[in-house]
């Protein structure tokens, strides 16, 4: 007697395109490069039953089951980044030095439940 609502493929958890422009956040005066980058983000549902394509953890599978039995008391699992990649940023610091710094986890490559 599980509670089941069909979800269309476009609503499933997956990476969506998001370009972050440093000028939009007012950082263009000190960030030299890149001017922006494709950061992406995760959005979508993690419906019952979870499939392999949704990169679900064991915890998410169990939470989905409990959610299907008690939708009011237990939320659906979240759609979150499961694989991210780094970028390097070139910028000026307060002393006018030029800095090239490596930052992990800046681009969302894959999402999962």
């Amino acid at each position, binding site marked *: 007697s599980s509670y089941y609502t069909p979800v269309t493929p476009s609503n499933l958890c997956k990476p969506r395109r998001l370009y972050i422009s440093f000028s939009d*956040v007012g*950082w263009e*005066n*000190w960030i*030299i*490069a*890149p001017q922006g980058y494709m950061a992406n983000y995760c959005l979508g549902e993690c419906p019952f039953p979870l499939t392999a394509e949704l990169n679900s953890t064991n915890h998410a599978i169990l939470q989905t089951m409990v959610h299907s039995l008690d939708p009011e008391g237990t939320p659906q699992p979240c759609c979150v980044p499961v694989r991210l*990649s*780094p*970028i*390097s*940023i*070139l*910028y*000026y*610091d*307060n*002393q*006018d*030095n*030029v*800095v*090239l*710094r*490596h*930052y*992990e986890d800046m681009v969302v490559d894959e999402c999962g439940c």
Partner: protein
Amino acid sequence: GSPPETSLLKSLGLSAKPTPAAPAPVPSVLWRIFQGRALPAPGDRAPDRACRVEELNVPGNIIRVFADQGHFIHSGEPKTFLCLEKRLYFNFSVLEEGEQLTMAQLEINFSHNSYHTSSGGQVFELRLYQALQMSLRGMSSHTYNHKLLVAQSFVQLHKSLLFNLTEVAKGWRTPSKNLGLILEISVGSRDSAEALPPRRLQNLCASIDSFLDTSLLVVSLNQKQCQASRKRR
């Protein structure tokens, strides 16, 4: 900045939004490394850069090019065999706690196009000293308490000269120990310069006017960022 912005900057390892006053051109070495990372050659597997700067073959994840903040002690018309005497100072206060310095390379740039024909392959002498004690205004560098780090000859065909200062720069993390360097460039030795006619000496020193600037390339390792990456893997 706003609290969310401050928090974001902190997570990027910055205490506040930088406000550069007189930003210099980006050094070519940093552009090269940046572009190599942004546009890797097809088939290249991205190396792990959380703990190592592969391009320079040293541990690290932050590369800085420090602008020289030192002043000229002597330049222009030579009064002695010295053509140029300059203090070099690199402000290390921007290095964060927990950052480990792994490489420091001093670059002295000469303008390639201003090679002076009157120097005629003349050999110059370069000496680099580490200042160990503060000097008083008006005192010549020879009265400084300083330690000779480098003494070498060069002909002014070089575009730039590079020196490994890693061990010296590690000591500069302590502000009271960072008293900078003294750079001297002379025409040959004191004896050979004294044998030259003053006009000739003046012309030779003028060719050193192509002296452009000095910068310090520093690589450091932010342990926190490196450990987080290792732990996740």
